[in-house]
């Protein structure tokens, strides 16, 4: 199979073999994910796919990943580095599995648990396999884990430093007992953690089989070559961006504890074949849980730059090397222990990605989209099942509109850019939890107007079907618009409202329950018949709305993406519907659009 003549300079393995091994490794990561999806107990695993699977070499360099959750893939680089650094390189035995979720040791936030296993060949470590997944119940003060008004990390769940979950194939029962004693839903956590263990076993078998087929030397040379190729190609991509300093900033509107806005500021410095994203000048860390750790910030930077560069570059250590992040300690982008931070991974992370997009928009006008909705719309709830009394707990997130792009409209109703997850089908949701979905629809006029319109957000209404359900939320973009680019208009804001049973008006949680923030709160008790309305924001528009064609405006009207009022307000056109139900933009005798 080897074709030595096809080797590029400096590489030890021919390109055909390299391609086969690269695809084998990424397919292994996908198979790890499928194993988790099929065997886990929680909808956040088997429906939302809020997990990631990654392979590392024996030096803890990432060698492959699959297209799961970008924020986890970015942070896991730091998580694994920390775990191996803290424990040391020589402490692992075959069958050992290590668990960690401590954000101050490189994890994204407490609900995200990382499991690590060393793979051995003839007594030597040849790889580390790892996965990271969001457990719906981490033992925080609020069911579901995202306490919107937490004031320190200890309110956000059980913090696990690197610990042996399994030694030489045997479960460490003491550790499992501690975890389950602190989770509201131990059976679900058990099923989800065991799914993660199974996923690591799949990866171990695949790596072993790969080495048996190609030999250790070829495997190691191939992974080295793939890292080198990825680095070289990423540097080439960065070199195409004009050198310069590109500033941008945006706002986190409040933190759930104090109602003050926080500025996230970044200067993207493109310097030949390297990029440095410098967050100097960002606000001091927040009192509430909107902070990010260094790993979260760096992960968001990677995420943005992976979206703007060649997607065929192998995703491994090499493609991260030319990308640098500067995040001063004590700021909202690199908070200091023990600051609360659970919302940083869901809200700050997409904001940072959008900021990098905004900064690079002048340099890459043909690639950069406008702002996405940019909030995960985290809605958490828990309680006891009315029929059985069993405790349940869930983290529900909502999809938003994405920004208009240089070549087409933004996508509607897509999970936020740091998540890349799926929504949970209504049928599954209603089967698992005592909450009914009254309505779920795209929200007209929510996408920012533009030559290329922003994607639409959604509206969903829940009705509580149990006597007592404890709800929490972390939303953003409720008062700060998702920005447009190149003359495009902003997308519509998010919202979360409550209507108590027997009343008619929708109110914010601040108005109804006196929460400090209308969008970030925890442990509000709702009763049977109470309703919650979630509005997920639309994406920003790209380009001057007046340049949008008459046909596309008509198509938007026809699909119900915009209203005739919106067509007039945002695009300045008058539209009428004929008897056949066809919308048409009015023109005068010369064919000019009526404005």
């Amino acid at each position, binding site marked *: 199979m080897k074709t030595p003549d096809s080797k590029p300079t400096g590489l030890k393995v021919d390109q055909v073999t390299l391609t086969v091994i690269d695809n084998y490794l990424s397919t292994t990561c996908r198979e790890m994910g499928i194993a988790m999806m099929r065997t886990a107990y929680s909808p956040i695993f088997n429906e939302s796919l809020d997990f990631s699977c990654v392979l590392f070499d024996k030096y803890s360099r990432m060698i492959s990943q699959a297209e799961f959750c970008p924020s986890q893939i970015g942070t896991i680089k730091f998580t694994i580095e920390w775990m191996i650094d803290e424990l040391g390189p020589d402490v692992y035995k075959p069958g050992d599995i290590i668990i960690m979720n401590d954000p101050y*040791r490189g994890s994204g936030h407490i609900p995200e648990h990382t499991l690590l296993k060393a793979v051995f060949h003839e007594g030597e470590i040849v790889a580390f396999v790892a996965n990271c997944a969001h457990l719906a119940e981490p033992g925080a003060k609020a069911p579901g884990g995202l306490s919107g008004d937490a004031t320190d990390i200890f309110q956000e769940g059980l913090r696990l430093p690197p610990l042996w979950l399994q030694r030489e194939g045997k479960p460490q029962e003491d550790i499992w007992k501690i975890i389950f004693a602190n989770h509201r839903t131990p059976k679900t956590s058990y099923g989800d953690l065991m799914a993660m263990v199974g996923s690591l076993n799949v990866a171990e078998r695949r790596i072993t089989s790969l080495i048996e087929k190609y030999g250790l030397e070829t495997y190691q040379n191939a992974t080295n070559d793939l890292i080198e190729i990825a680095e070289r190609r990423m540097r080439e991509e960065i070199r195409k961006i004009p050198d*310069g300093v590109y500033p941008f900033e945006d706002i986190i509107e409040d933190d759930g*504890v104090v109602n003050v806005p926080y500025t996230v500021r970044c*200067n993207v410095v493109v310097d030949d074949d390297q990029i440095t994203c410098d967050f100097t000048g960002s606000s001091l860390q927040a009192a509430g849980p909107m902070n990010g750790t*260094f790993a979260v910030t760096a992960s968001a930077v990677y995420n943005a730059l992976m979206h703007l560069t060649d997607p065929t570059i192998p995703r491994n250590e090499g493609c991260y090397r030319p990308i640098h*992040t*500067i995040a001063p300690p*004590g700021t909202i982008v690199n908070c200091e222990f023990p600051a609360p931070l659970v919302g940083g991974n869901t809200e700050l992370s997409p904001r940072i990605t959008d900021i990098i997009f905004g900064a690079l928009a002048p340099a890459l006008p043909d690639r950069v989209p406008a702002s996405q909705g940019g909030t995960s719309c985290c809605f958490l709830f828990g309680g006891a099942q009315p029929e059985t009394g069993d405790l349940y707990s869930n983290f529900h997130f909502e999809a938003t509109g994405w920004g208009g792009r240089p070549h087409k409209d933004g996508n509607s109703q897509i999970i936020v850019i740091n998540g890349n997850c799926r929504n949970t089908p209504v049928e599954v949701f209603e089967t698992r939890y005592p909450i009914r979905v009254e309505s779920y629809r795209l929200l007209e006029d929510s996408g920012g107007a533009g030559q290329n319109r922003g994607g639409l957000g959604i509206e969903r209404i829940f009705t509580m079907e149990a006597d007592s359900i404890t709800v929490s939320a972390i939303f953003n973009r409720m008062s700060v618009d998702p920005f447009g680019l190149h003359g495009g208009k902003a997308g519509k804001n998010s919202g979360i409202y409550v209507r108590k049973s027997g009343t008619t008006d929708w109110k914010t949680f601040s108005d109804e329950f006196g929460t400090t923030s209308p969008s970030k709160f925890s442990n509000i008790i709702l009763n049977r018949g109470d309703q919650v309305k979630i509005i997920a924001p639309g994406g920003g528009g790209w380009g001057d709305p007046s340049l949008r064609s008459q046909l596309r405006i008509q198509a938007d009207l026809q699909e119900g993406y915009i209203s005739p009022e919106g067509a007039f307000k945002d695009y300045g056109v008058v539209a009428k519907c004929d008897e056949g139900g066809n919308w048409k933009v009015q023109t005068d005798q010369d064919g000019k659009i009526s404005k």
Partner: protein
Amino acid sequence: MSGKWIERSPMYLSFDIYNCDYCGKNIPRSIWLETIDSSQVPFCSPEVAKVFIRSRNFPQNTRKAEGVTGLMEELREVRNACTALRDRRVSAQESKSK
């Protein structure tokens, strides 16, 4: 460039976080100590130290371009900011409890 790796032992009873003086990254165990203008400055890796040294000469860089003195001033600002932050956190909690 001249520097060296130093190792720290992980603590269990006191949880200390060490940040790279330039990029802010949390350093688990190995710290790169770079000698710059006869001062020793901690970094998370020699690569980051290299970026820093190069960025001192990059005219439009947002970091202060006056060299180490400027960097130290900037770090002092960050530390002062952290003190202010702690004060602010206390007052935030006080105002919430009222």
